[in-house]
């Protein structure tokens, strides 16, 4: 009797298994809205059409912090998605959540899927790898900060477009003064103030943002942003703000719209802004390397990435993980990478995709699209410029931004603001360390 029912069960399973295989659904929570969101759906559809065992279901869950919060809540309730897109500042939080996530290198190994971390650009793979070089999350959309110039406004101020695009911060201030004198209402604005003027600024000048290799080598890192060089940068900005040459636009990408509309003549912001600027700008514009202080030894070094990577959440069946691994393999194909790079403005993240785009002649037509990757690959990354990893940096970055705002408003001196930002940032790091050390 028992044997009979076992046999029946086995027969049932034999029928059920391929069926279950065919229906394995992979939830993918992301934060790509608008044009980029359509592209995400495209990728999923393309993958779903290419095979029949797995179905990737992309779900838009709001902004980066929102989707991360939603996933944390879902994990606590026991129904997290299989794949979660997390922005770069959330990396340390995800990494510390052992048991909540499956490292990508392990996922690929367990499912026997070919995976070569060396195929990725070093500044990209370095950002998402542990100290032993194991890739923990799957790089997806990477960007970096670049410098945008409105060439028409430059011409009006007697500066000859691209040739006069400031290379150093000294030249930048001189250009700003000329633009202002020529009656430019908004001279300069920036997106992502901390990412641009603290994080990328530090890497670009090869100075640390924090101890322990910018937090990558341990939870006991401290911020080191209260240095004369950082103070010099923030004082310069605060001074420009006071003289009406720096219009603060907010903590996210708000500044990009001010540049695209022609209101502001200079902008530092994400490469991801290019698609929108290309569509909206009714003037000649160009993209350049970030300015630097030419008296700093080793500057310019290389910039660091932003954007997001894909994390694999724990608690799913091996079959689902097999599907996730195959989907990642699909995403890393050069033709898919190039398609993503060309249509969104995010960086090509593998060497193969970069070479392929070069060969296609895309950069001849759009030289501005190649500036970011050249800046990212300017020099081989050092311990100061391979990225950063601070616990609860979602909060840490906002604390830095609050203090920067106080400096730009003239309420605090640059020194006081950075001093306080470092102190408050370190308190957050200690709290994170206490909560995650066990």
């Amino acid at each position, binding site marked *: 009797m028992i044997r009979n029912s076992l046999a029946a069960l086995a027969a049932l399973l034999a029928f059920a298994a391929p069926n279950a295989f065919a229906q394995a659904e992979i939830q993918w929570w992301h934060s790509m809205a608008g044009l980029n969101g359509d592209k995400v759906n495209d990728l999923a559809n393309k993958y779903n059409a290419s095979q029949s065992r797995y179905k990737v279901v992309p779900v838009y869950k709001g902004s980066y*912090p929102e989707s991360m*919060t939603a996933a*944390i809540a879902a*994990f*606590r309730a026991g129904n997290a998605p299989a794949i979660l897109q997390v922005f770069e500042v959330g990396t340390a*939080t995800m990494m*510390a*959540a*052992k*048991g*909540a996530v499956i490292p990508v290198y392990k996922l690929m190994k367990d499912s026997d899927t070919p995976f070569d971390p060396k195929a990725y650009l070093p500044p990209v793979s370095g950002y998402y790898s542990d100290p032993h070089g194991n890739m923990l999350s799957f790089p997806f959309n990477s960007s970096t900060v670049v410098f945008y110039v409105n060439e028409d406004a430059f011409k009006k101020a007697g500066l000859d477009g691209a040739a006069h695009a400031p290379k150093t911060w000294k030249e930048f201030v001189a250009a700003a003064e000329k633009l202002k004198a020529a009656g430019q209402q908004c001279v300069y604005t920036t997106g992502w103030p901390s990412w641009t003027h603290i994080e990328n600024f530090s890497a670009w000048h090869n100075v640390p943002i924090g101890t322990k290799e910018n937090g990558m080598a341990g939870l006991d890192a401290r911020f080191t942003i209260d240095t004369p060089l950082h103070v010099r940068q923030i004082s310069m900005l605060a001074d420009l*703000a006071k003289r009406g040459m720096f*219009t*603060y*636009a*907010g*903590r996210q990408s*708000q500044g990009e*719209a*001010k540049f695209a*509309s022609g*209101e502001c003549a200079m902008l530092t912001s994400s490469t991801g802004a290019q698609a929108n600027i290309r569509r909206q700008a009714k003037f000649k514009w160009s993209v350049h390397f970030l300015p630097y202080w030419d008296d700093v030894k080793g500057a310019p070094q290389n910039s660091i990435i932003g954007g997001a990577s894909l994390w694999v959440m724990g608690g799913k069946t091996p079959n689902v993980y097999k599907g996730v691994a195959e989907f990642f393999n699909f995403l890393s194909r050069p033709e898919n990478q190039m398609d993503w790079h060309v249509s969104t403005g995010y960086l090509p993240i593998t060497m193969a995709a970069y070479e392929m785009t070069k060969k296609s002649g895309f950069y001849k037509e759009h030289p501005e699209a190649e500036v970011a990757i050249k800046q990212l690959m300017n020099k081989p990354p050092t311990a100061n410029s391979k990225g950063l990893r601070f616990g*609860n940096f*979602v*909060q840490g970055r*906002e604390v830095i931004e*609050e*203090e920067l*705002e*106080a400096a*730009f*408003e003239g*309420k605090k001196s640059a020194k006081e603001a950075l001093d306080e930002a470092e102190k*408050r940032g370190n308190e*957050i790091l200690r*709290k994170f360390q*206490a*909560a*995650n050390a*066990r």
Partner: protein
Amino acid sequence: MEKRVVFKSAWLPYALLAPQIAITVVFFFWPAIQAVYYSFLVQDAFGLSSEFVWFQNFRDLFHDSHYLASFRVTAVFSLLVASLGMSIALLLAAMADRVIRGAVAYKTLLIWPYAVAPAIAGVLWAFLFSPSIGIVPYYLLKGGINWNWIINENQAMLLVVMAAAYKQVSYNFLFFLAGLQSIPRSMIEAAAIDGATPFRRFWTIVFPLLSPTTFFLLVVNIVYAFFETFGVIDATTQGGPGEATKILVYKVYYDGVRAADLGGSSAQSVVLMLVVISLTVVQFRFVERKVQY
């Protein structure tokens, strides 16, 4: 003798009360107890590890100058919202009380904004006053005023106060109007015959007689500004620039949800719970009893 309906059954009253009690327990007591419990824990974002730390979170809180600053911001914000909302409402009510033609239409229109959700009110004001695309900054700039609440603390505070008070004006208006209409006409007429000016009549007769309404509204408005303006802040300044508009309730949300610090956030909500309790006690003990004609 007093007439009463008495339930004979032992369980019926409890059964009738049960739904309400269940709702109160599930939606009020349970989360409140959870908040108290979490306020004693230090926990990572995913809830994978937690440690019981007694009052550590509270100690951290009161040693944090930024938390104390948030108290000050909240006090300034609530006083401004309450006084602005109430004075405009009082002015409108005093005027509406004298209107003869079209009074109903006038009153109806004034009550409308109360139906607008705080988040929507916030978005509307944010659009009107948006530094890049708003219509108001455009004209202000023509008048030589550089309006940019994204970096100017006072302008940011002004914006959230206006957006928060705007909604409350309707509510206050309703109560003031009812209060005004309950004042006997004969007293005002007598004063008028004695030669008192309308201004004098208002301050010596009407305003003192309105005092119970005013006190009631003061408490209600402060509670509103403390706890129900989250939507306005989130839709406009999100607490910035710096921490200029980070009121206590917004800080609870920010620290708990965005910054994933559940312990610290729970400790803050326990503190807020104590504030509500004491405000409620004040309202029942003093305001409702002491203020009499």
